[in-house]
């Protein structure tokens, strides 16, 4: 093979891979708008802005049609302050299913101090009641009368019956576009606000309930570039 043929071969290979793999992102949204921290949005006849949105994604896996594992990703912390953290990785064209845990598994919560994404320095660890905050959302909600409600949701807790880690699984078809996992923040925040809950910093029944709401608010969609 001549050098020029080899270069051509490599280019074809790269293009082939580019068309056959797409980077999956987590996108927290309000309605159809991707959320930007600090920007104000309309929600439930009020206005809302976010200071922080962070959550853990564990055991993210892609699977073939016959259930064979294609790829497994280590625990990652999605943090809206760092848009690169929203990208999980490339989804192979052979993948027909993805599944993952929203949050951290129970073993991570009882194994002392871990490193990387699970380092408590990331502000997602409760010292007083050992364990990870699986989902964090902070900001300001202003109702239709203009009254302000700062909100802080730290959803965590690994012990039954109020564990907050949630399993999600989606059929995926990379031929339809670039898959993305949209979190409809208004779905679960409106639910909390309607109950008069604006701050939650402890594990328990309400945390577990809201974790289920967050789980239900996640949808797989496709984008086209």
């Amino acid at each position, binding site marked *: 093979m001549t050098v020029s043929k080899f270069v051509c071969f490599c280019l074809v290979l790269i293009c082939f891979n580019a068309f056959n793999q797409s980077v999956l992102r987590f996108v927290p949204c309000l309605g159809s708008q991707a959320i930007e921290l600090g920007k104000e949005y309309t929600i439930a006849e009020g206005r809302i802005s976010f200071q922080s949105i962070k959550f853990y994604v564990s055991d993210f896996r892609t699977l073939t049609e016959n259930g064979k594992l294609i790829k497994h990703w280590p625990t990652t912390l999605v943090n809206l302050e760092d848009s690169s953290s929203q990208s999980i990785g490339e989804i192979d064209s052979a993948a027909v299913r993805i599944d993952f845990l929203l949050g951290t598994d129970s073993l991570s919560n009882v194994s002392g101090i871990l490193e990387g994404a699970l380092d408590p320095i990331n502000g997602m660890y409760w*010292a007083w009641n050992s364990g990870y905050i699986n989902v964090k959302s902070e900001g300001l909600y202003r109702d239709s009368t203009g009254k302000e409600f700062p909100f802080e949701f730290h959803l965590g807790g690994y012990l039954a019956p109020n564990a907050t880690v949630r399993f999600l699984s989606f059929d995926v078809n990379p031929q339809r576009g670039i898959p993305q996992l949209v979190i409809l923040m208004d779905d679960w925040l409106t639910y909390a606000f309607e109950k008069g809950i604006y701050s939650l910093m402890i594990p328990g029944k309400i945390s577990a309930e809201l974790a289920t709401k967050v789980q239900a608010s996640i949808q797989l969609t496709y984008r086209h570039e």
Partner: protein
Amino acid sequence: MNRLIFLLFVLISGLLSAYRFDLPIFKSKISIPKKWPKPTYDLSEKAISEEGFQLGRSLFYDPMLSRDSTISCATCHLQYTGFTHVDHNVSHGIDGRKGTRNAPALINLAWKKFFHWDGGVNHIEAQGINPLTHPAEMDNTLAEVIRRLTLNDDYRKQFQRVYGADEITTAKLMNALSQFTRSLISSNSKYDQVLRKEKGVTFTEQEQSGLVIFRQHCVSCHQEPLFTTHQFKSNGLQSDPIFKDLGRFAITGKVVDSFLFMIPTLRNIEFTFPYMHDGRFRKLKEVISYYSDKIDPANSHLSRELNGPIHLSDKQQKDLLAFLYTLTDKQFLYNPRFSFPKK
């Protein structure tokens, strides 16, 4: 099925190892006292190195870890008093701010599964984050502590020696601290020496009588040889009107856990005053007097171990006190290996 469980274990261990570091192997000086139960935490030389112990010791005594560099772990955990804050019902940390609970003694921690009076901390390495970041204790942030340590050449060298790399992380910091705190073993009191039948060491008649009383009335919660079961119990104390401390309930949210606190060890109890989770009793004889005659049997939270009346005579109370004094381990309290590291 067993094979499946084994494979699952290997997989999970493998995944977790990605988030941990490997410890270089050095010689350890720790030996587990004979006839003691197996510790919760590894005390072998694989887990505790001499260099790791010394690094943990330096960190334990270093006020640089607090926001304004005035408070170290040792501020509230003094060696000579069983690593507790003697004469303080609750400790004061940075800027004189007060906590809400009596600083627990740091004795035989390697046998504990949970930490703090309410058991909210589930791992010895996770415990250290609390005093470092609590606004009434050292009021610092992990990022700032790591930054300061990283700027310190001596610490960087020590971390390099212990962990094979000078990058300082939260996990390494907490592991180093726990190498020191795991090593705080007290097992050489007069009580231990008598049980080991050491030559020339015997209980006095009064101490022996106290031991009998102890085994009759106290041992169900303060089980030998650790003198605690580490369970959560209510001894019937009324909630402090200022702190309104609900104990274990704050962690589990279960009503049945209301006013339960972890049973403390009685080792070195002579020096760990004041007593109880809020330090309400200044003298040990007040504690004995409370258990003897002042428990309210109508208290609905009272643990079943205290359901029956104890009622000790004055002589019995003095005998029990004499026995409790035999739990003092001066070798532990004055061991230079655990004291401020002089350079």
